Each structure stands twice: as C-alpha cells, then as structure tokens.
C-alpha cells in the first residue's frame, strides 16, 4: 500500500473555554489523535503545527516530550490547517518521515477580527472610510453572486439552518441548538444580506491528525483513510478578495479564484471528480461563502444551490452531505484548527464512526475545502 493515510484523529471541543489556553487545546487534540492511532509521541518522526494567534506550535514539544524531531510551524490565515496537512503529507511523500503528527489550534476572543490597513499595503484612508471590515466583503461577494446567478436570498437561511441542525447533533460542536430558517433570516442584519446567524464567529478549539506512510497504515489503523490529495493554491489576477479598493471587471466569475484552482488540482491528483464525492466540507465563513464554494469547487453548478440546499440535498442523509458537523457556522473558526476540523469530520464519517450525524450508505469519497484571506485555498480528497 503506497500513499499517505490518516491513522488517527483527535479534537478538543470547539467553543469558548475559559481558563484553557489554545496551546492546551492543541495538546489535548494531539494526545487524542495519538491514542486513536495507538501510538505515543516517541513514535512520531516529524510534526507540523499551525496557530494564528495562540502561540508557537513547535513549543508543544515541551509538553509532549523533547524527542528531537523536526517540527514545522505554519501560519497561513484561515487556510493554516490545510497548509499544515499538505506540508505533512509532502514530508511522507518525500521519504523524510513515516509517521507525521499534524496539529492546529487557536483561541480567539469574541467579536469580528480587526485589521490594520498597513498590514495589507493600504493607506489609512481605507480604514477611515469604514471599508476595513471583513464581513462587508463576504456580504458584497454574496450579493453579487446571488444577483449574477438568479438565486433567492432564502438559500442563505436554509444553508445556516442545516449547519445548526448538524451542530445540534455533534458533541464537539460549539453551537448545539437547531434554528429554523425563518428565525435565521429575520435576525439582526450584520451586513445585508447576511444576518447574525449567517456568520461564523471567531472561536476556540484544537484538532490533530496522525498521518502514516502506506506500508505502516494498515498495522496502525483498522480503517485507515487515504489522503488522496492535499493541494494549496493562492489567488490569480481577477479574483474577488477581501480589502480590495478596486477589482477587475468580471471579478467573482471564478477567474483567478484560489478555490477553483485548489479543488481542480486536488481532484486531478486524486484521480476522481466532483461527481464522485459522497461527503464534503466547504468553507462557510458565512452562508454565502458556502453557496459560492459549492459551485467553485465543482460540487454543483452555479445557480443550482437553491435546488440542492432547498431540497435537503446537503443534509447528512441527502445526495451530497455538506458540513455534517455544522461547519464553521456551528463550530466557530479557531483559525489554526478550522481546516483540520473539516478533515477530522470527514475521516470519521468515512470510517463510519461520526461523532454526530452519520452519513448513511458507507461513503467512500470525501472532499474538504478551506479558504482564507487574502486569497488562499486548500483542498483535500479522502478515500476509503
């Protein structure tokens, strides 16, 4: 058996955890993943960790043990988890390690992320004008997309309704209460057309995975999950990204989108197509992002989301189960952990041991997509 496999998955519940540091959540997840694989830290050949704001992941060796292994730290915004995983897979593929641990964690305080214009190469005028707001970007992109593809804004509430229904059933999710679409649509407007319940919140949590080279995987795990592809792409000219004083005409048509590119690369590397996917995770920073990303990744046609979501097709028992653990909407977004949460959920679904709603019919092909500023996406294909 060649290739790279996930042989262990662990997670610290997402939410807000007073008195628990981000690093401690990372440690918890890492120990859980090692236990899941039946391994100890001393069996690990190399590690990759990511955190946006909650400390240096490589200092986890002080908690797990100073075994002398290489430990790579990544910090790639919302795509941190995806980049960490791709880096770990490359270590195995390159023959540098047989067993690699991947960990991501973060602990964010409440409220939307603030940003400094200078960090994005912008003058102070941009913030003065009131434009330096991430939620504005998501709302403007969503409105344009709905307009362009003739979609009713109702789809935004329906996507969130499904997310909270899945979160309610998942013991590690943050938002554990189902919400009817009507209540979601009528809630306070954050940035029209997106209401309070259509945005995820900065959150807290940790996730870890243990990867193994193919010839070791079957011995370590009863049902190893093949990481058939892990691809990262940055934007090209013409994409529609946050904090842009100007855009090219046609922005948002998918030209230049890192999500389009990363998904296509992942499917090509795995030798499967979007039509083969049995279960998916797509970045749902907000309801509109999910709607857009379903099409950008190729999982459905542009404009077909209303029918797909409205008919229950993305429910855990639908034709294309999406974000079965509640996604970012129900879990919040501890940035370093978020992309790995997606993989954690899909791995457990493919193994038939989902913590929440289990997808029926033994799914065999999983897909994950994480996206972040300023135009960076990471996609995986997972198979059993």
């Amino acid at each position, binding site marked *: 058996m060649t290739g790279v496999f996930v042989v262990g998955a662990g997670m610290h519940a997402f939410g807000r955890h007073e008195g628990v540091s981000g690093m401690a959540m990372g440690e918890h997840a890492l120990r859980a993943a090692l236990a899941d694989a039946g391994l100890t830290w001393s069996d690990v050949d190399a590690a990759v960790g990511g955190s946006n704001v909650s400390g240096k992941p490589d200092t986890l060796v002080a908690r797990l043990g100073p075994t002398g292994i290489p430990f790579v730290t990544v910090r790639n915004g919302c795509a941190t988890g995806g980049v960490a995983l791709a880096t770990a897979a490359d270590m195995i593929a390159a023959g540098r390690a047989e067993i690699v641990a991947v960990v991501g964690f973060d602990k964010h305080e409440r409220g939307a992320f603030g940003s400094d214009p200078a960090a994005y190469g912008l003058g102070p005028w941009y913030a003065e004008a009131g434009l330096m707001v991430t939620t504005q970007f998501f709302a*403007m*992109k969503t409105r344009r997309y709905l307009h362009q593809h003739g979609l009713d804004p109702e789809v935004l509430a329906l996507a969130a309704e499904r997310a909270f229904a899945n979160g309610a059933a998942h013991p590690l999710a943050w938002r554990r209460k189902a919400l009817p679409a009507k209540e979601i649509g009528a809630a306070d407007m954050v940035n029209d057309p997106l209401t309070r319940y259509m945005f995820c919140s900065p959150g807290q949590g940790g996730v870890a995975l243990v990867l193994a080279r193919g010839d070791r995987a079957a011995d370590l795990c009863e049902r190893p999950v093949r990481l058939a592809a892990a691809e990262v792409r940055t934007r090209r000219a013409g994409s529609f990204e946050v904090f842009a004083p*100007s855009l090219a005409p046609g922005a948002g048509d998918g030209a230049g989108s890192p999500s389009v590119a990363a998904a296509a690369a992942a499917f090509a590397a795995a030798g499967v197509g979007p039509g083969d996917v049995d279960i998916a995770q797509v970045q749902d920073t907000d309801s509109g992002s999910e709607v857009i990303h379903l099409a950008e990744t190729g999982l459905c046609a542009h404009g077909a989301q209303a029918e797909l979501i409205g008919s229950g097709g993305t429910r855990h028992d639908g034709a294309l189960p999406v974000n079965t653990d509640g996604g970012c909407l129900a879990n919040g977004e501890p940035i370093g952990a978020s992309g790995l949460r997606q993989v954690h959920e899909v791995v457990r679904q493919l193994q038939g041991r989902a913590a929440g709603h289990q997808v029926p019919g033994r799914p065999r092909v999983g897909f994950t997509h994480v996206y972040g500023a300023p135009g960076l996406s990471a996609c995986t294909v997972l198979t059993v």
Partner: protein
Amino acid sequence: MATPAHQAGRPTADRTGEATADRAGPPADDRPLADPSLFARRDPPALRGSRCTRCAAVTFPAAARCPACCVGDTTEVELPDTGTVWTWTVQSFPPKPPYRVPDSGFEPFPVGYVELGEVLVEGRFTGPVAIGDRVRLRLVDPGTGRLVHGFAAVRP
C-alpha cells in the same frame, strides 16, 4: 426576495450622515482630503487610477507597478466620474479601530463596488442603492472631517 429585516437594515439617506458633505460640496468645502493621492483632481472630483502598459489592466489607487500582472509599468489615468452599482451592502455596526466613530454617533452606511469604465471601485454610497443603479462620484465625510471618495445616485 427581501424580508422585512432586509429592508430594516437599509438606512435612509437621512441616516447616513453624509448628506451634509453632499450639500456643502466643493468648492465651498475646505475640509482636507484623507489621501490626496487617490484623486486626479478635486473639483469636480475624479479618481486617479493607473493603466498597465503591458496587460492594460486598470487599477485603483494608482500604482507604479501593475498589481494585476506585477510586471508592467503603468501610466496614470483619470477614472470616469459616473458608473453603475456592481454590488453593495450596509455596514450595520461600527468597524473596529483604526476606524473612528463620528462624534455624532455611529449610523449604518451603505458601501459597495461601482463599475467605473474598466475597473470596479469600492466606496461608500450616500444613500440606498441597488445593483445597476447609476451613481456619480462625490466627496463624503465619514465623520472624521477628512474627505474620502463616495458615490451618490444619479436621479433620472
């Protein structure tokens, strides 16, 4: 289909706090520009963009090196002062610093992108708009006493 909540989230022109800047308008207005480099001229206002000599992309603000292809040099261009609304939202809550809440208190304000010839430019609107509306460039005061570019609907 807009729900009542969608409607409620749209401020009226009276609530945006920018009507004063519109009425006052240059040349009587002596408030400084937040960043003069954004403008080709002030009265009547026009934005200063740049066009790539290699890939022809038009971008705003003007940049010496083309931000689209990152290879070509650029020449300055004055952007058209009227265009159509490409997308919009309403900023319903006060942004975090370095944004400063006006002394008069925060009022929601609409923002979006306007198709100005060969480029989409982001800015504030002086009142409610819809995609496809014709708008014209205006100087607006976001509450700091320093003027930035914005757009007002062109009434037929």
